[in-house]
């Protein structure tokens, strides 16, 4: 008999095999298994991802929120720390100086991730290197 299972967050670490490679490493994922009480033959798994800023990999956050970022910051460089946008600019050096000032003033602590909002998130391209 299939029981309805609510898998607690604390047990999620033991269930990495259920995560796709893309999801692996993300901070909080809740899995719910449901079954149809009227028809026990049907069983499906619904995955619900809850993303939070705390402890989340900022690069993953950036990728995850790229559609929303594109609405406002298309082609801009955006720096993210703990799930919050802390600097925006056209040039990486410009963004770096904003981040440095905020660190110096004690506004932020930690290492943010900066990516380009667009189809390709790389902040730096080196088209010519072959050494």
């Amino acid at each position, binding site marked *: 008999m299939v029981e309805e299972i609510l898998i607690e967050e604390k047990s999620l670490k033991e269930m990495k095999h259920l995560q796709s490679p893309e999801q692996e490493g993300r901070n909080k994922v809740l899995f719910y298994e449901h079954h149809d009480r009227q028809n026990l033959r049907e069983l499906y798994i619904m995955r619900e991802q809850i993303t939070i800023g705390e402890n989340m990999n*900022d*690069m993953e956050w950036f990728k995850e929120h790229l559609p929303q970022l594109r609405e406002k910051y298309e082609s801009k460089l955006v*720096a993210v720390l703990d799930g919050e946008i802390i600097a925006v600019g056209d040039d*990486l*050096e410009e*963004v*770096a*100086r904003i*981040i*440095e000032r905020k*660190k110096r003033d004690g506004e932020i602590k930690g*290492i*943010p*991730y*900066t*990516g380009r909002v667009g189809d*390709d*998130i*790389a*902040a*730096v*391209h*080196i*088209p*010519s*290197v*072959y*050494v």
Partner: protein
Amino acid sequence: MSDYSFKNNYPILKISIVKEKLSVPVWVIIDTGSPYTIIPNEMLNKLGLGNEDIITKITIHGVVHKEECAVEAPAYLLQIRISEKSLEKTLVVGYDFGSRFGLLGHNALVNFQLFVDWRQKMVKLRSLTG
């Protein structure tokens, strides 16, 4: 060997990466195809840089050993000395592309006039701002 040379037909020069009183000499390829200056992490480690010195992490995309790759890399704001000129708080990306050379990119080159004579194997950087 002077501060300017050629390596496999790449124009290279010796610069210094500076943090406070520490200075590390690095040979860099003058790379007009790179927007930023890139220094091997091994060289940056000699400056004693720690996590607190990393301004941000970025994704860097390029061609390494003929294969395209995208990796996460640390970015710093450091002093660079090129000849007699000192560039303060210049963006430097730490990235190992399998050699002891770095890349001197646009963000540093914009401060100079650049002359390269491949026939004479000669490189000159002339400071634009004195």
